[in-house]
């Protein structure tokens, strides 16, 4: 088992090198470069000489592959470079923001599992009843409504009607755990909304499949109650594909976080990325993507490991 985990981590390295290479190149291909942006803020008609000086100062005058190798050399020492604008180390910035996005993502994931799984089970048990139809319709609705739209409504309408709007001054967990939780709850609900709908539908389908199995009939023939049958006999077998889905959806959850952090002014990775793209802050963009890449790979590793827990056939292999 340990050998397996080590091998998985080693396989991570080429993946990340390849990903970082692509990101490194593509961010520099975004139209409008940082030199123009910097100059436009101060002196629009800067001379060619000023340009070249600035370019050299930022280390952007060398060929792109040299820049890449320099960046890689830094990375091996845990250095992601410095922001081209603020000159703060990118690593420092990310380490401050990563926990916030992680917390938001985890809360969203938890919400979607806590909502999606029980409702999915309920809908499966009440297959083709009014309740089942209503819940399935609701889930389509949740999927269809975009999160940024709901987020905007939550910001705008309560303010218009009751003069209340979610706080935009961010409270960190260490300052006020409860305040922090409440502040992140609304974005987490919105972020988890679509995912909970997907989980609900998947859980329902899988439960229906499992409930038809012979071993469920065996469990009924033993005299077990419906709740014991569902919890002990059915759910575990139905949940294996749900876990896979969680692994696949984790990056999308982050994509949603980028937008919601912008709407709710949460200083997480998403907001950092958005600002960095806007200002063409290349080291920051590359750094954020690298960290996301690592996170996604680790989540998928955890998902694979959890199969062993859920499915004895995998464990014994």
């Amino acid at each position, binding site marked *: 088992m340990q050998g397996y985990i080590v091998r998985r981590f080693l396989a991570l390295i080429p993946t990340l090198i390849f990903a970082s290479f692509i990101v490194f190149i593509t961010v520099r291909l975004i139209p409008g470069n940082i030199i123009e942006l910097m100059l436009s803020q101060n002196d629009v008609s800067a001379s060619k000489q000023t340009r070249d000086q600035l370019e050299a100062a930022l280390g952007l005058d060398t060929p792109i592959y040299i820049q890449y190798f320099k960046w890689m050399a830094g990375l091996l020492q845990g250095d992601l470079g410095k922001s081209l604008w603020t000159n703060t180390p990118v690593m420092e910035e990310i380490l401050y923001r990563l926990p916030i996005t992680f917390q938001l993502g985890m809360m969203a994931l938890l919400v979607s599992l806590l909502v999606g799984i029980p409702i999915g089970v309920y809908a499966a048990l009440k297959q083709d009843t009014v309740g089942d139809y209503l819940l399935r319709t609701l889930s389509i609705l949740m999927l269809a409504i975009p999160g940024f739209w709901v987020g905007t409504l939550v910001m705008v309408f309560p303010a218009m009607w009751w003069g209340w709007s979610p706080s935009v001054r961010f409270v960190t967990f260490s300052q006020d755990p409860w305040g922090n939780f409440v502040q992140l709850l609304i974005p987490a609900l919105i972020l988890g909304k679509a995912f909970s709908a997907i989980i609900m539908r998947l859980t329902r389908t899988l439960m229906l499949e499992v409930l038809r*199995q*012979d*071993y469920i*009939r*065996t*469990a*009924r*023939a*033993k*005299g*077990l*109650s419906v709740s014991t049958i569902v919890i*002990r*006999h059915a759910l*575990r*077998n139905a949940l294996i594909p749900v876990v896979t889905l969680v692994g696949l959806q984790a990056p999308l959850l982050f994509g949603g976080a980028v937008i919601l952090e912008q709407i709710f002014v949460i200083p997480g990775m998403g907001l950092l990325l958005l600002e960095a793209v806007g200002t063409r802050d290349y080291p920051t963009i590359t750094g954020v993507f690298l960290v996301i890449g690592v996170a996604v790979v680790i989540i998928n590793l955890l998902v694979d490991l959890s199969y062993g827990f*859920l*499915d*004895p*056939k995998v464990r*014994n292999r």
Partner: protein
Amino acid sequence: MTKPLLQVRNLTTRFGHGLGSVTAVNNVSFDVNAGETVAIVGESGSGKSITALSILRLVPEPPGKIVGGEILFDGLDLTKLPEEEMRAIRGNRIAMIFQEPMTSLNPSLTIGLQIAEPINLHMKMPWQKAYDKAKQLLDRVRMPDAKSRLSSHPHQFSGGMRQRIMIAMALACQPKLIIADEPTTALDVTVQAQILELLKELTRETGSSLILITHDLGVVARYADRVCVMYGGKIIETASAHDLYARPLHPYTRGLMASIPRLDQPPGVRLVPIKGQPPNLAQLPPGCSFNPRCGEVIDRCRRDVPELMHADEKHLHACWTSPHV
């Protein structure tokens, strides 16, 4: 004479409703005495499995439903029992063994848990003790190395071993009645005999009654005390196993016997299969359901539905052509 343990009276189970409905079990009546082994024999689709599931009220509902009759077990009418009381009987006083040992055990739970489960539930035994009992049960079904196998999962066992586990599970609460639905159909021939011997031996030890559902008349001859032959959802002949073999009265029963290969027949004697297909329960012919396939059919067979008639006290049949009509 003491009252039978189980009395099934005019049991009728239907799937669907209205025009498309299918009567899978049609007016079936039989008794099972304490300690007795009763075989229910028939082709696929004859209603034998649905009869078994109806007794435990495990017919999937909807679409299935017990629409008539009584199932008297120990003085209780199971058809009228609330679901909760029915649950207290399932796995406790009536246990069931299913046909497919490969799929009838939960793949993600240890077999120890699966055997201990009814003990914990019905005998209110704490888990630790229930596991000890599960170990003893595995010993009784001759599972080698029972103690360490408690924590194994079903995929680590062969089909025969899994069926032993199913038997251990069925015996867990010392049920008065065990229903075995084609317990050996999915197994190798050599393993079939072992499983049936084991089942017979254990029911004899515990004094449990056994309903053995099978399509194998060879099994019936060796293990059953009495036999009910089912066709098209109805019992068409019932007798003691010995009597049925000596004197089959219904042409269908005779057809079943003629289609079994036998080693004591001279070579060159051809097997006689029953011609035609098993009946479509949604479109049964008028009169006797067997009449389109029957070689001895008379006019009355196409007109009147035969009900069970006595040939003698213990031997009943439903055929107009029999000399006992």
